[in-house]
């Protein structure tokens, strides 16, 4: 039982501590070996995150498959079909246009890239365009001078927006930009500084717990 606990719970914690200590060490101790180890660890972490994409693809299809089974009907089937078809186009295209001599998939050729640039950037811009419209309707709803706090929020927001429009700056400058920049550089900076500092405190606390092996969130014993 104790071996089981050690392998499942303590060993991962020890790994966390080792990796953290090595990185801390290389920051404060000048040593070539330590630097080399850290360099390797940095590269390894990149490779591990890249490997994880395989897992991601499995979860994508698993989730969509599950959805299709939960919601029978032509629409969900057709949507799953769109997903599979498009994925196959990407996989097929990158294999067909691969540069086998250099072991590269067909990403430098325009063919696969074309599918990506034709479909994705337009959709994403349109989606964030929606965000603009949502923000506009939210402004209409929210930016009302109900209380002192709400007034401060609305006035600072409006001033900052106006500052970026040359039609206002042209006639109201230097005052508009000066006030906007002043609000940005001082009161806003004060709040941001405080928020960033407490966030750092919170993150450091969690890291310390991690380093002392007290943070159990990351390690499991079940399953």
């Amino acid at each position, binding site marked *: 039982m104790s071996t089981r606990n050690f392998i499942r719970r303590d060993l*991962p914690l020890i790994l*966390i501590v080792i990796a953290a200590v090595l990185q*801390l060490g290389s920051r404060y101790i000048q040593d070539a070996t330590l630097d080399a180890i850290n360099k390797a660890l940095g590269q390894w972490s990149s490779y591990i995150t890249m490997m994880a994409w395989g897992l991601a693809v499995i979860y994508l299809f698993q989730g969509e498959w599950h959805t299709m089974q939960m919601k029978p009907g032509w629409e969900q089937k057709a949507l799953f079909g769109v997903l599979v078809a498009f994925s196959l186009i990407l*996989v097929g295209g990158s294999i067909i246009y691969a540069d086998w001599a250099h072991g590269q998939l067909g990403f430098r050729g325009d063919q696969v890239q074309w599918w990506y640039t034709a479909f*994705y950037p337009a959709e994403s811009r349109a989606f964030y365009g929606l965000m603009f419209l949502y923000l506009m309707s939210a402004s209409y709803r929210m930016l009302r001078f109900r209380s002192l706090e709400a007034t401060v929020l609305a006035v600072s927001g409006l001033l*900052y927006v106006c500052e970026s429009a040359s039609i206002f700056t042209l006639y109201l400058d230097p005052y508009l930009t000066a006030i906007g920049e002043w609000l940005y550089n001082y009161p806003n900076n004060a709040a941001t*500084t405080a928020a960033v*500092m407490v966030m750092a405190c919170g993150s450091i606390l969690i*890291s310390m717990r991690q*380093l002392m092996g007290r943070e159990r969130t990351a390690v499991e014993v079940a399953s």
Partner: protein
Amino acid sequence: MADMLFMFIQMVMVLATWSYLYRDNFFSKAAAEIVISVSTVYFFLSFYNSLWQQAIVPILDGTNLLNIIPIILGLLMFSRLFKGYGWVSSYSYAILLGLGTGATLTTMVQGSITTRISDTVTRPFAATLWQDQLGAWLTVFGVIFSLSYWLFTIEYKGYLAYSLKIGRLFLMCSIGMLYAEDVLWSQSLFTGAATIVVNFFKVALGIPI
């Protein structure tokens, strides 16, 4: 012709996405599904492509055999899919979490705390104009008042209650400005998407862009 097709697809994607605003429909869902597949499969392929070149080729030609370790650790992640062996994957993310811990402890004290403090306290003395001096002193007090919002063990009574009230004004001012920034960039993207639609019709009608 290929250009025209390209522009047409882009326009259809924009309009399909915007059709959300009217109501839920098949085209908007299909557009989402296409982007999800691009978002996962395309990146999966391109990351594995880089992985092949940067990690596996050096193993195969014998220049860096140690790369086998991250590859094995990466494979261990897949143990999550097998019943009863899910815990094995914790070895892989343990390393990542360890590096995250190290990164937090090495960079955050200096980057987010001490540099910020020294920046705050030196500003009032560096400023030359009266408005900058005023602002810089306001920042010093603003930081202290704003910090009082994030106290978790002390009750807000007496002076602390006033400090909280003033601190919240600073926070609101900041939230207003951050909100304004996002209005600005999302507007740029909205303009970008609208340009796609306008340009398609301009080209189709033979009007110069």
